[in-house]
């Protein structure tokens, strides 16, 4: 039988206007985009060493943080990033809002859209929520985490942290350990690391490593010893709240910790350890490992601010052509 390519729905669609740029998935980015964003973040890091930390670059712009899931570090760092760039920022948390009264995401988006924001930063438990907002209102959308799908700014800040530590990402070996199945951080990081030329190995119990994961650009190993070859051990949070009762992803946390928990004895001296937080100390990571000198965990949090500044700046200045780093520093 003749082999006929399946139809993709986007084919045959009429050419429309150029859509707004968004950051919804790492798949939206090219290697050049990531290099540009990381470079921009480094520039902002230098600017933050000054006494006056605020830059006037996004004065008059409006950033709305729309958080439907609890978050401390992501929402606060987006908020501070927008403020450091002099944007007006409004943070809306779903609890106690119209959402509790049954308002749909689409209607919430339309309401927010009435304020003419430039950027909506959204965190939502539903996969595809950022796309829904992007389809509904004319705004740049930044995905701050959608269900188990993507958390692209987390991956970018992790790349920034790794580059800061090692000088380069290309050629490094990163082991991503734990509950990959339920982790948006894992998906974004595997894609981002592979994009930048790192070798990635996903390690964990078979039920927590999704079938077909290799297509994201990584190897898969079930034996914890596989982490020893890595330069960086990236530990994922055990997403206990996502485990369906009776699903038996792990027979017990005790067994998980015994087989896949990251302890000092399982690490090679000098191996760097990362974790996106919040940590379950004593479950996926030993407390001593988290606090050790090899841990980059606190630096990850610090990177979040400048990377999110870079993302907001980049979206609102329409890409590389308008990034004038020298001019930026002059104004500062």
């Amino acid at each position: 039988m003749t082999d006929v390519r399946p139809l993709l729905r986007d084919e045959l669609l009429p050419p429309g206007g150029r859509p707004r740029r968004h950051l919804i998935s790492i798949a939206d980015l090219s290697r050049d985009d990531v290099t540009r964003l990381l470079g921009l973040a480094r520039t902002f890091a230098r600017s933050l060493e000054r006494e006056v930390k605020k830059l006037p670059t996004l004065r008059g712009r409006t950033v709305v943080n729309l958080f439907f899931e609890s978050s401390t570090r992501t929402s606060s760092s987006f908020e501070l990033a927008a403020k450091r760039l002099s944007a007006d920022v409004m943070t809306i948390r779903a609890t106690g809002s119209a959402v509790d009264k049954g308002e749909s995401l689409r209607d919430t988006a339309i309401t927010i859209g009435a304020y003419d924001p430039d950027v909506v930063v959204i965190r939502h438990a539903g996969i595809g929520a950022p796309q829904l907002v992007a389809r509904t209102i004319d705004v740049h959308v930044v995905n701050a985490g959608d269900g188990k799908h993507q958390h692209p700014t987390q991956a970018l800040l992790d790349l920034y942290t790794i580059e800061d530590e090692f000088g380069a990402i290309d050629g490094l070996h990163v082991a991503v350990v734990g509950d990959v199945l339920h982790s948006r951080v894992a998906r974004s990081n595997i894609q981002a690391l592979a994009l930048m030329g790192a070798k990635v190995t996903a390690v964990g119990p078979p039920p927590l490593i999704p079938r077909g994961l290799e297509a994201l650009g990584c190897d898969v190993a079930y034996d914890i010893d596989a982490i020893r070859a890595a330069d960086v051990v990236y530990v994922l949070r055990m997403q206990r709240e996502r485990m369906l009762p009776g699903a038996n992803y792990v027979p017990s946390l005790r067994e998980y910790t015994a087989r896949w928990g990251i302890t000092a004895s399982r690490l090679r001296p000098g191996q760097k350890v990362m974790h996106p937080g919040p940590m379950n100390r004593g479950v996926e990571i030993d407390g001593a490992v988290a606090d050790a000198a090899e841990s980059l965990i606190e630096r990850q949090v610090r990177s979040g601010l400048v990377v999110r500044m870079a993302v907001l700046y980049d979206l609102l200045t329409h890409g590389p052509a308008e990034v004038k780093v020298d001019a930026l520093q002059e104004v500062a």
Partner: protein
Amino acid sequence: MSRKTLFGGNGRTDTLTLEGLRVIDPGEGIDECLTVTIENGIVTRLEPGSANGGGRVLAPAFIDPHVHLRTPGREDEEDIASGTEAAAAGGYCAILAMPNTDPVVDSAAVLGALVEQAKTEARVPVGFLASISKGQDGEQLTEMIELAEAGAAGFTDDGRPVVLASLLRRALQYVGVAGGRVALHEEDPALTSDGQMHEGSVSAELGLGGWPSVAESTMVARDLALAAYERRPLHLLHVSARESVAELRRAQAAGVDATAEVTPHHLCLTDESLRSLDTNLKMNPPLRAEEDRQALLSALVDGTIGAVATDHAPHARHEKDVPFEEAPFGVTGLETAFAALHTCLVRPGVLPLPTLLERLSAGPAAIYGLERPRVAVGATANLVLLDLDREWRVEEGSFRSRSANSWLLGRTLTGRVELTVANGRVAYEA
């Protein structure tokens, strides 16, 4: 089977002459240029004609063995009038409706009310399948004999699997007395508890819960074994996985009276499309991998799968316009089935047009023991006129259906239904 299982679409009959068209009726061995005369709803003359129809083809009208009319219960999404009007616009002269309504079609009373409603509201004849279990609870068998006497076209718990093998066994035993066919939605719910899409590299990337092929094929294997043991016929609804096709081939070769249907979307799309996270690509069973699509296509071509079924599943816009996991399963299809398959498979040369026409009409008729629509002198006119060259764009506002959750929105298709004659009268004219 002589029992009446189609209702409505009656009334005045029409008289018309269709001149000089390419007529294709694989069942009658016709593929030639003819002038067809219909008098008072009956085909009275077939005369040689010279082609003046351009790319126009006259064929037996289609039968859709799998439609959700949402009536009773969700008439905001579809009702008998809108659903049968959509069917007529898609070239269908008869459709079969699934019983997963509210209330479920699980008693002669509910079925009888629907039959009466169809007699006055249906644009084309409609048949109704009754449920296998009361309230589709998967436990208590319905009164299948009484339901058959009340006009049930078959039995299914579609939307849900029959999880208990013992219940299916009883249904197979009773269907031998009641008549008709048991039709199964094959899904092991223990393997699909978090299932949102086909399990594979795309679901791994998107983070959506996997609905693995084996959740279908293991149930298919079990149920074919039960049908073989009970020596009763079985119909597999909307087959999606290549492993299921393999099981079906084995059973047919062993002499089991097993039939199957496949949807246009499973024949045209794969899980790769899901990257858009468009909820109009969310259906149950899910779109699968390219190897599955190829296996379905081969099985449709060689007749292992005998029918195309739309699984037309209307949903209100506000229910689909939500993040992916919150959206209900199902897409519409009545008004686009022929055009989609013609565009996607016939024009590229993968599926011969006569085969497609057979699987849309005689194929489903045979499965449910319905009279085969045919182009023959003396036959009731059940005909569809197709313009194979006509391009049209699928727009949200262009549907006769009350719902627009089509996987083809915004797409341009080639091939369009120009005229549908159902039960002797013109049911649709473009």
